[in-house]
């Protein structure tokens, strides 16, 4: 009995880390945008849903193979993110917070409506690129999808780290985010760097969408809960810290899967699937109260 519950525990932990990887990808998108433009993009989840639908259309309606379809969806999301920043975000990002919030909310409503209008509300099935098999290691059964998700997350984090740490472009993007005025003085094309940040975020969101779709069905509102988990992850890690977003994402995934694991015991029997979103909300509120800058963020100092 003890052995069974240990493998059960580890299995739950692995699937928690796998969903945490998805939250981390979307949280990274939120963090990149917040760092560079100081905007919290409420439409990030819907943009990811749209990307997943594009991949679905290419495979299902046009008979493409999975990988070219996914790559095309990523590329379109990247270009779309840049276009969104250039056209509708840039004019309002320096204005009042309320305007920015309403514009990204408008985007959320419009994209959600577009998905519903174009593809209808009935759930669609997007195949998993990693197959539907399972791997057994020492009695612990892990699905290919979970392994693939975890590997993808590691790959993303590695690529982003290489980009920001070792390339001139990454340096310019960081400079534009941290100190736009001085970056401009040394010749960085700041607005393009910010737009590039939006493109990158949209592509990251697309990855999150493509990873989410096989685990649930593809629906217009598919990413709304994931967005809240990603918000919780970003806040937990510190909304300006990419490392924090990844750690926060994994932690949120783990916390939620541990809660559902524990709910088989009477002390936690009050927990069920319906309480996953409120639990994420609780994470957000507690972090903001106890340590507003998150685990990896620097406290904000306001000058008068």
């Amino acid at each position, binding site marked *: 009995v003890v052995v069974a519950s240990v493998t059960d525990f580890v299995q739950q932990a692995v699937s928690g880390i796998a969903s945490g990887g998805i939250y981390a990808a979307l949280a990274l998108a939120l963090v990149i945008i917040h760092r560079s433009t100081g905007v919290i993009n409420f439409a990030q989840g819907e943009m990811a849903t749209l990307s997943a639908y594009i991949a679905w259309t290419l495979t299902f309606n046009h008979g493409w193979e999975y990988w070219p379809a996914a790559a095309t969806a990523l590329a379109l999301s990247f270009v779309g993110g840049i276009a969104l920043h250039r056209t509708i975000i840039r004019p309002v990002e320096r204005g009042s917070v309320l305007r920015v919030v309403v*514009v990204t909310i408008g985007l959320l409503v419009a*994209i959600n409506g577009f998905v519903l209008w174009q593809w209808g509300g009935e759930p669609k099935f997007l195949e998993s690129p990693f197959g539907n098999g399972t791997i057994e290691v020492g009695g612990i059964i892990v699905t290919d999808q979970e392994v693939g998700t975890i590997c993808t997350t590691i790959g993303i984090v590695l690529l982003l780290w290489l980009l920001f740490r070792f390339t001139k472009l990454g340096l310019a993007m960081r400079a534009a985010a941290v100190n736009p005025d001085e970056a401009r003085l040394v010749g960085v094309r700041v607005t393009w760097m910010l737009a590039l940040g939006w493109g990158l975020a949209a592509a990251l969101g697309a990855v999150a969408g493509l990873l989410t779709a096989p685990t649930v069905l593809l629906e217009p509102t598919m990413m709304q809960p994931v967005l809240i988990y990603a918000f919780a992850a970003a806040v937990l890690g510190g909304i300006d810290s990419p490392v924090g977003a990844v750690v926060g994402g994994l932690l949120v995934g783990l916390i939620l899967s541990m809660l559902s694991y524990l709910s088989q015991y009477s002390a936690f029997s009050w927990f069920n699937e319906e309480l996953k979103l409120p639990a994420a909300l609780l994470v957000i509120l507690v972090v903001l109260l106890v340590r507003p800058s998150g685990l990896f963020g620097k406290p904000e100092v306001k000058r008068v």
Partner: protein
Amino acid sequence: MTPRTKQIVGFVAFAAFVVVVAVFPAFVSDFRAREWAYVGIYVIALLGLNVLTGYTGQISLGHGAFMAIGGYTTAILMAGNEQFGGPIGGGMKDLWTLPIAGLVAFLAGLAFGLPALRLSGLYLALATFAVAVALPSTARRFEEWTGGGNGIHLSNLPELTGSIENVDVLGWSLTPNRWLYYLSWSIALVAYVVAWLILRGRTGRAFRAVRDSETAAVSSGVSLARYKTLAFGISAAYAGVAGGLFVLATTSVSPDVFPVTLSIFLLVGIVIGGLGGLSGLVFGAIVIAFLPLWAQGEDLGSLLPDRIVEESRKPGGSAIIFGVVLILLMFVLPNGVAGIFRRVGQAIGRRRFSRSE
């Protein structure tokens, strides 16, 4: 204009507005009266949101959640939740539940206002958005209180005024729809006067000081904690009463009655209204009550090409139009429609001033 004449003009304008509201149902069909009752309900909620966002500058994307708290309070007090295994017997007449709905929401607002003290700007928007998203599933979880996904139905209860037959008020026989119209607008007008009384004095000044500069407000002895939580409480109380009325209008409550979109709509209403006076709020309420219908081409159908009307009637079509209009509005009218009124008013005022010189 001297302050005195300004006050008189304001009073006359309000009196005229009351008269317009009172005679309005005579000119519209019974069915339309019901739609306009919803406008009145939105006005109440927007008045509350205006206290929070307009006066203290705190953004709430979760006001639908406070409406839900009020709505559930009303429904539970009327129908009880014993049938789901809950502790409340119910049996309260609908009107009496509304003040309690306001009170419960007020307490919830104070409770949420405390953590919100630490947050500002985008972070508060984020936290309140999470509240709005988490609320429906919370309501589903605590089934013994809320009736879970099916919710609570009020349509045939004796506690619901005007559910079956006409309502007699002071010798007038009102159809259920007109009753709802007069009920929500009477409460809206009283709510406006109450808000005006609260905001014109010391409290209103403190709220505005907090909005313009928290640091300056603290330096002049305004307690941030006290006024920011108070603003949340008052604002939530308005939303609670509006939520109670909303449930009386829909005659049932369930997690789907208060979706995230409702919270979004309320913020949109306040932004379109331009965080201004009553005129702006009424305009905002009209937009959020009717825009979904307009966007489906209901009323404007004859003005637009058939092809567009047809496409916009497909599911999601109205949402596309709504979202795009919202983004365009933020570009064209950064201060909302009330901003235009104000600018035009100022322009006229200036001209008069220069003429009299």
